[in-house]
């Protein structure tokens, strides 16, 4: 079990990353802080939030940013610059490729959801990744697998056969995550970096927890053994043994683990408000706390990985705030979704 609050990265300095670590430390000082996030939440109009972000360097590479309509483009430029930085500074191409592939899997989820919900979700696609969006679209929509990796082809085929007819599009996330984590484990385990492996195990544990609670909530516990990801620190058997148990029993089962707060508060909010939002934000918060432990590592790939992932959480928070503002969501609701990750 990974105890995030007590986690110490192994002191095995990798001097190949001395330059990268120096550069990351300088960039970290420009990341949004808790008070910046609060300031963004408190603005009245989304245009104001975009203006604050632009002044803070978000629109730095844009010749002109005219309003919130350019917002997604602005974020994509930032995301691309972070991935470019990783490719430039990483001495291990397998790791930078892994982070590019995360975008392929994200786009794949969007396209599969679009296919099964018969909606146009193109505005959610992010043009970063190892595989172009056009090739992914052809693979998902027309089963034309030219130019896509074997892993992506497998996922599409698997989802098509197993998940067609499922009514909850969230389950597509579960299906794609399942295969994605399998793929990542096959890269990270041989790489032999403890921090990276522990991060992935934490991600898998939390993904399994969310899947378990979602399936339990939807009454689909019978398919649980098909979708849980192997490779985390929580045994698959533990989840399977909790099928059909009461919510109190589930909370009790995780009470002595590092996930006690996530489960207790997440389930509490789920039962009160029929929403998974608290569970999602607490999961994000736990991973963010873990990534911040990389500050204890003087040199190595850890600060670089942590920076890339923390920026992704920052983009997620910024997107949630601006989209929330555009849709007139109350400040408190935005804060509930976003702020936990920045505590």
């Amino acid at each position, binding site marked *: 079990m990974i105890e995030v609050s007590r986690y110490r990265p192994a002191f095995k300095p990798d001097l190949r990353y001395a330059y*990268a670590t*120096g550069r990351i430390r*300088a960039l970290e000082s420009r990341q949004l802080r808790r008070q910046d996030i609060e300031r963004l939440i408190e603005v009245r109009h989304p245009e104001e939030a975009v203006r604050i972000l632009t002044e803070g360097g978000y629109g730095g590479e844009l010749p002109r940013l005219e309003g919130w309509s350019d917002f997604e483009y602005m974020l994509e430029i930032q995301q691309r610059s972070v991935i470019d930085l990783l490719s430039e500074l990483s001495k291990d191409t397998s790791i930078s490729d892994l982070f590019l592939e995360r975008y392929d899997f994200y786009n794949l989820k969007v396209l599969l959801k679009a296919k099964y919900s018969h909606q146009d979700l193109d505005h959610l696609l992010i043009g970063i990744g190892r595989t172009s969006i056009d090739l992914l679209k052809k693979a998902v929509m027309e089963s034309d697998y030219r130019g896509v990796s074997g892993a992506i082809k497998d996922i599409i085929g698997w989802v098509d056969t197993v998940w067609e007819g499922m009514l909850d599009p969230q389950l597509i996330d579960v299906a794609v995550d399942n295969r994605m984590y399998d793929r990542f484990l096959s890269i990270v385990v041989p790489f032999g970096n403890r921090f990276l492996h522990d991060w992935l195990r934490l991600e898998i544990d939390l993904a399994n927890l969310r899947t378990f609670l979602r399936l339990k909530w939807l009454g689909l516990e019978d398919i649980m053994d098909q979708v849980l990801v192997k490779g985390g620190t929580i045994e698959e058997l533990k989840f399977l043994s909790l099928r059909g148990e009461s919510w109190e029993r589930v909370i009790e089962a995780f009470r002595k683990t590092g996930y006690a707060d996530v489960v207790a508060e997440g389930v509490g909010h789920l039962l009160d408000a029929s929403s998974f939002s608290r569970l999602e934000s607490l999961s994000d918060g736990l991973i963010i706390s873990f990534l911040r432990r990389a500050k204890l590592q003087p040199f190595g790939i850890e600060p670089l990985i942590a920076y890339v992932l923390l920026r992704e959480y920052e983009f997620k928070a910024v997107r949630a705030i601006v989209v929330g503002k555009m849709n007139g969501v109350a400040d408190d609701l935005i804060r509930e979704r976003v702020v936990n990750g920045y505590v």
Partner: protein
Amino acid sequence: MTGLEIALIGVGLAVILAGIGSAIGVGVTAQVANGVMSEEPELFGRVLLLTALPGTQGIYGFLVGFLVIMKLGLIGTTTGIPLFKTLTVGQGWQLFLSCLPIAFAGIFSAIHQGRVCATGVEMTAKQPGGAGKAMVLAVFVEFYAVLGLLASILLIYRNW
């Protein structure tokens, strides 16, 4: 092996080991400093001293080597017969051993000081005002190199 040869091996160890330590220490710190300055070039002044600090051990090693060479009378002017012409094997070993404190204190303190200075540069990237504090912590490591230097000098100039 003659006394002179033994003494010169000591000189070589003092200069080489302390020099290796400094090269590693400065090398690590300079890489981090380059990373920081690629984003914040205005921090050059603040990180310069931290980058240079692990270089002092190399200078101490060179100084000890120079003092031994002077003592031997290989350079400079001496009154009477230069020591290297009459140096016994025992005296050669004494000079050899005199060089060891700075050789070993130099190499290890420079490497560790390099790490302290590199993390100090990382801290300066986040808090430019913290460069002074980082310098103070790095000086704590310097202290042990200075002790090595003093021990070597005292041994070189002991009465024969």
